[in-house]
């Protein structure tokens, strides 16, 4: 019963946040809406026993990433209403049609073949220890590779930030 | 064998390319000597292989084999037999010459030399590979340095020519790859595991219809490379635009990959199809012989003329190979070497005069024998070697091919003999227009004769041309056992009876049983 309440409340918040991001002409509002969505998803993680990743979600996503977004929005100065008129000819109807079709199809699939596996007796416990166990045993190599990825990304970001297209005086 | 000489032959030039690239930029004068020394070292290794080659063994020698990917049956498998032996030797012989001929290249010299060395390694790899995937990799890889040779250091229309060359040959390779993979799949069906090992694929039992398809797949790739009429139009463009070294290598060695491929793969792997289609391919070859010669007659550009002469000469090689007689096939093999030497020399000579006069138009010249007597002498010599004058190398090959192919394709052989006449027509006419008559322009009067370096380039070729023409025995002795083995295999597999074998011929005047 509690879960149902949580689902309805935070589900509504998540949808609202998502919609506001897409529909609101001001990117700052959109970013805030997305942040709300992410926080509610963090709640769902907790409900689904993903304690560690819920924390990560809040800290990394809702915290760091979204802050970065806001920061950039402010930096390049697009923090005002923008024109939402569509310039590409069939983009908007196509996008909407495809989106609806996608939902319908997912619904069809859901109706026919949702999850066929039986529900597990006990949900997994996503504590830091358990996740760490998996990360440093089965997923060690990908884990190490992500470090490489992160280094490359940070170096790339620095290099891009230093790049100045204007000719030197 | 204590060391893997064949691997060394391939990888020494490749490593050499890296060494040349790594030379300090402040010491540009080191580039040519280092590249030259490396190519000479490769030539030495090739010489060792030729000398150490066992005449009594018709199979592959110096074999090396290491599995690369055993699940798919891909090996690193090298070996040399009488057919590939002299192509490897020719390759390693032409590269030092090409390097010395290119010392006047100032634009990105280091990269140029490295490209040449890379090309050498890949070319040797093609001739030595006994694994089809390895073969294909080398076959494709060498397109890249060749593309850059033409595209970076070529003439005015170099990009167009390089692109045409690349796309045309890559198109052929696509068919080749499909054929190779299909063969491996057949091996999987028959042996239970896929393999790309040439020697194992020889044991495949392929139905005649399938052989036709595979013959076509392999054949198109090789026909484009040869090039066989009507796939030849990339050749004049590529030759004309390529720098001298590029033309020498292109004509001298690259084209031989096609003829070599026909002999090594089409004849051996698909004997039924080869026997059935021999007439068709020989006919195409003869069309090429006549056609190339006729078109060469009126070319206004010397390089194009030589390029079309290649079409004609390689027609002889294909005719010899598909004569399916000992004489024809061994003539074809030795003619590959001969053509590499004579056409290589012709391109070198054209390059020398182009360096001085910056035009390839025949009509721009005239009477220059007066100011360049040495050059004219070398040119005339090469012209006659190319026209198949007895006593020089070209004749040995053409004679074997013509007499060897008569036994199976009499009409075609007779038509091909006309090609010998046409060769004299286009070459001597060009010689007449360039070298004889009055010296009537100031630019021509100001020409200087060739110097020590240029003579040094030409003399080894000339010496080989004479040697092969007068005493081809050491070469024929190594080629013939391998050729006999190919024909034995074909006769054995298909019940085809080759009309002329070496054992049929007597050399003394004693009684011959009819």
């Amino acid at each position, binding site marked *: 019963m509690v879960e149902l309440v949580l689902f309805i409340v935070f589900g509504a918040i998540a949808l609202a946040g998502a919609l506001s991001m897409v529909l609101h002409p001001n990117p700052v509002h959109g970013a805030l809406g997305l942040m709300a969505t992410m926080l509610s998803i963090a709640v769902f993680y907790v409900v689904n026993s993903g304690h560690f990743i819920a924390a990560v*979600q809040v800290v990394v996503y809702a915290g760091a990433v979204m802050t970065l977004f806001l920061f950039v929005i402010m930096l390049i100065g697009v923090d005002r209403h923008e024109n939402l008129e569509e310039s590409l000819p069939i983009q908007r109807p196509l996008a909407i049609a495809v989106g609806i079709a996608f*939902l319908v199809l997912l619904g069809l699939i859901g109706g026919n073949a949702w999850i066929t596996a039986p529900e597990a007796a006990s949900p997994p416990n996503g504590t830091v220890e358990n996740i760490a166990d998996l990360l440093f045993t089965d997923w060690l190599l990908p884990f190490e590779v992500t470090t490489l990825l992160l280094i490359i990304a940070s170096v790339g970001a620095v290099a891009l930030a230093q790049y100045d297209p204007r000719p030197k005086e | 064998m204590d060391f893997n000489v064949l691997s060394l032959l391939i990888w020494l030039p490749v490593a050499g390319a890296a060494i040349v690239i790594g030379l300090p930029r402040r010491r540009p004068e080191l580039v040519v000597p280092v590249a030259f020394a490396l190519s000479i070292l490769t030539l030495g290794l090739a010489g060792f292989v030729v000398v150490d080659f066992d005449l009594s063994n018709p199979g592959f020698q110096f074999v090396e084999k290491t599995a690369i990917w055993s699940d798919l049956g891909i090996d690193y498998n090298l070996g040399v037999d009488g057919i590939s032996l002299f192509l490897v030797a020719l390759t390693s012989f032409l590269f030092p010459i090409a390097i010395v001929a290119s010392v006047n290249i100032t634009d990105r010299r280091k990269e140029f030399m490295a490209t040449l060395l890379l090309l050498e390694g890949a070319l040797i790899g093609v001739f030595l590979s006994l694994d089809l995937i390895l073969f294909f990799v080398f076959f494709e890889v060498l397109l890249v340095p060749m593309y850059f040779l033409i595209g970076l250091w070529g003439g005015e229309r170099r990009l167009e020519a390089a692109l045409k060359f690349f796309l045309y040959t890559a198109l052929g390779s696509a068919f080749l790859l499909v054929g190779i993979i299909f063969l491996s799949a057949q091996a999987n069906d028959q042996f239970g595991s896929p393999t790309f090992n040439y020697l194992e694929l020889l044991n495949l039992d392929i139905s005649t219809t399938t052989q036709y398809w595979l013959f076509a797949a392999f054949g198109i790739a090789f026909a484009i490379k040869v090039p066989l009429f009507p796939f030849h139009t990339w050749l004049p463009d590529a030759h004309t635009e390529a720098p001298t070294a590029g033309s020498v290598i292109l004509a001298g060695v690259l084209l031989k990959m096609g003829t070599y491929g026909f002999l090594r793969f089409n004849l051996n792997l698909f004997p039924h199809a080869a026997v059935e289609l021999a007439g068709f391919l020989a006919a195409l070859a003869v069309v090429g012989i006549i056609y190339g010669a006729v078109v060469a007659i009126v070319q206004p550009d010397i390089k194009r003329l030589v390029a079309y002469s290649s079409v004609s000469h390689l027609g002889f090689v294909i005719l010899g190979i598909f004569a399916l007689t000992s004489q024809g096939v061994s003539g074809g093999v030795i003619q590959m070497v001969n053509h590499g030497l004579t056409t290589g020399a012709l391109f070198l000579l054209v390059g020398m005069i182009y360096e001085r006069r910056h035009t390839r138009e025949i009509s721009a010249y005239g009477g220059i024998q007066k100011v360049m007597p040495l050059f004219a002498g070398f040119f005339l010599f090469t012209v006659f070697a190319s026209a198949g004058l007895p006593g020089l190398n070209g004749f040995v090959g053409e004679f074997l091919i013509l007499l060897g192919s008569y036994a199976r394709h009499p009409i075609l052989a007779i038509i091909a003999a006309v090609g010998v006449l046409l060769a004299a027509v286009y070459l001597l006419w060009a010689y007449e227009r360039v070298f004889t008559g009055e010296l009537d322009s100031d630019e021509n009067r100001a020409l200087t004769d060739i110097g020590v370096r240029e003579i040094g380039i030409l003399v080894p070729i000339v010496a080989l041309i004479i040697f092969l023409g007068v005493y081809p025995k050491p070469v024929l002795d190594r080629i013939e056992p391998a050729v006999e083995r190919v024909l034995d295999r074909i006769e054995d597999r298909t019940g085809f009876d080759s009309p002329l074998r070496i054992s049929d011929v007597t050399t003394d005047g004693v009684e011959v049983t009819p």
Partner: protein
Amino acid sequence: MDVTAGWYLALGAALFVIGASGMLLRRNALVMFMSIELMLNAVNLNFVVIGRHTGDLNGQVAVFFVMVVAAAEVVVGLAIMIAVFRRRASASVDDLATLKG
């Protein structure tokens, strides 16, 4: 009334489609970028939910990796965007059509 995995999956699907629509409808590069993040979150939710349904913790590990990759992607993506903005003074992707055939 139990909240089964299906409910969450439906929610995930809805979020995903909203994200995708944002991708297609908005021309502000930053908003498009955020839409991508939304789609990633939607999928992450599905990972976790299915993980709970099947009792498998690996779903959460996958989410962890997605987050890492997304973080890296955001860093680079935003850097690119700043670089582009410096040159073009516009955040509209419709202005970046020089690769038009």
